[in-house]
């Protein structure tokens, strides 16, 4: 009896995906058995890429993103001689999902890259002034490559987690200006951890047909959501405490309209989820230092 039901439900899932999702969401559950406010299990590994200057691998359910950070030196930009720069790049290869085609970066990849840059800069995770070696002459450039290895929805949360964890893993070689010769010398044997001032955490919520609000959508749910809101908390680190009351980026995508209660719900989802993710990143970092 259950085999017959299984065959029917598989068929229903393929031929009528929207109705399939609707049946679950109206009953207050998700198609993978989670509750509406339940997140998928997240795993973080620090330093999987030994050739990178900082790296992290994040698995958010089936969504897997790897972040690798490479350091380079370059002259600073002319209008900001005292700042370095960060270049995040999100790559969505065809390997990750049949939705992605080979070729130039898709719209989703470009938008995600831009959002990653905004998240890092607006949360003041890394201050660009900390990346300066010699004013007007040389600065550090952080090339952050985020590659999605498997796409099952909620790209932004996974990418933010990976980028934050990888940045916490970066060590800058000591660079100083030789007083006698005026030349810039970089000592690759002495490394100092990058000064991370905050750890941004993203939380994505979706709304189905105006009423049902749920967190952490999977790929099947994302296709039928009327809108998606991503709330990023900034979590400034001061001493040993982390202040997690502030939001640094809010991004809504999708054409559906959202009322103020739903926006409030999304923000509170973000704030409730933040301590959990921060402790996950913290424990992953302590494990990697052992």
């Amino acid at each position, binding site marked *: 009896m259950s085999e017959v039901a299984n065959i029917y439900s598989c068929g229903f899932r393929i031929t009528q995906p929207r109705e399939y999702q609707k049946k679950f969401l109206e009953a207050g559950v998700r198609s993978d058995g989670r509750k509406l406010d339940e997140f998928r299990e997240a795993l973080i590994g620090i330093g999987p890429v030994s050739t990178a200057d900082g790296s992290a691998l994040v698995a958010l359910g089936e969504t897997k993103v790897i972040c690798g950070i490479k350091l380079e030196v370059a002259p600073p930009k002319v209008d900001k001689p005292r700042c370095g720069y960060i270049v995040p790049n999100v790559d969505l290869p065809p390997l990750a999902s049949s939705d992605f085609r080979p070729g130039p970066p898709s*719209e989703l990849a*470009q*938008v995600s*890259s*831009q*959002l990653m*840059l*905004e998240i890092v800069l*607006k*949360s*003041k995770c890394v201050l660009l002034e900390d990346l300066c070696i010699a004013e007007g002459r040389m600065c550090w450039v952080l090339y952050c490559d985020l590659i999605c290895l498997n796409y099952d929805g909620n790209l932004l949360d996974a990418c933010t987690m990976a980028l934050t964890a990888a940045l916490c893993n970066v060590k800058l070689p000591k660079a100083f200006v030789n007083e006698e010769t005026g030349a810039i010398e970089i000592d690759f044997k002495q490394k100092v951890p990058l000064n991370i001032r905050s750890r941004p955490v993203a939380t994505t919520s979706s709304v189905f047909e105006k009423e049902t609000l749920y967190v952490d959508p999977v790929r099947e749910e994302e296709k039928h959501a*009327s*809108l998606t*809101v991503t709330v990023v908390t*900034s979590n400034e680190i001061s001493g040993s405490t982390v202040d997690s*009351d*502030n*939001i*640094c*980026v*809010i*991004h*809504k*995508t*999708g*054409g*559906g*309209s*959202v*009322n*103020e209660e739903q*926006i*409030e719900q999304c*923000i509170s989802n973000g*704030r409730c989820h933040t301590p959990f993710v921060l402790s996950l990143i913290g424990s992953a970092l302590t494990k990697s230092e052992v």
Partner: protein
Amino acid sequence: MDQLLDVQLGLLRQADGSSLFKLNSTSVMVGVYGPTEVKPAKELSDRASLEVTYKPKVKQAGCREKLLEKNVQSAFDGVVLTELHPRTAIQIIIQELQDSGSLFSCCINGVCFALLDACVPMRSTLAAVTCVVDSEGEIIIFPTKRQEETALAVLNVAFESKEGAVISLSSSGVLTKSKFQDCITVCKSSCSKIFELYRIKMRQLCTKNAGSEC
């Protein structure tokens, strides 16, 4: 709030609809073509697909422009009655003439006027407002470029006219929850002026058309 809002419709002869929208010193020219032929890759079987292209004045379009395009497309996806024209494309081209701050709201309002001029069916009109929170904690509506750069946070919101619900929302910069809610309230009260402008312009357009067809 002393803002200079001006719009001219129908300046581009070839386009189905066009608008030149000015907000203080910022101005954009928007052209709308549609519903028109769509590339098979972008074809949607049950709806029209909205294609937004934003052209900056200098330099080539990059990721920042792509994010703006995505925000505009998301906003109008919810408002344009795309179900009436399946397997077609509605092309929206935004040309930046001058960016002196509040670019997002200028684009959204300009696009809405151009869609009205092109007689594309819509559920409601959209009014977009940009506000910033400056270093003293004050909320400033429709900031200048300088104010946007020195602000603690920039908030772009678009409201629809029927229920006043939020269609587009993007904020960047550190805000507390209460400050964020204050910003939304202030933005909501400022958009009535833009909704008023839609009515005035549409009335002018309709009387002008009636007169010329006589």
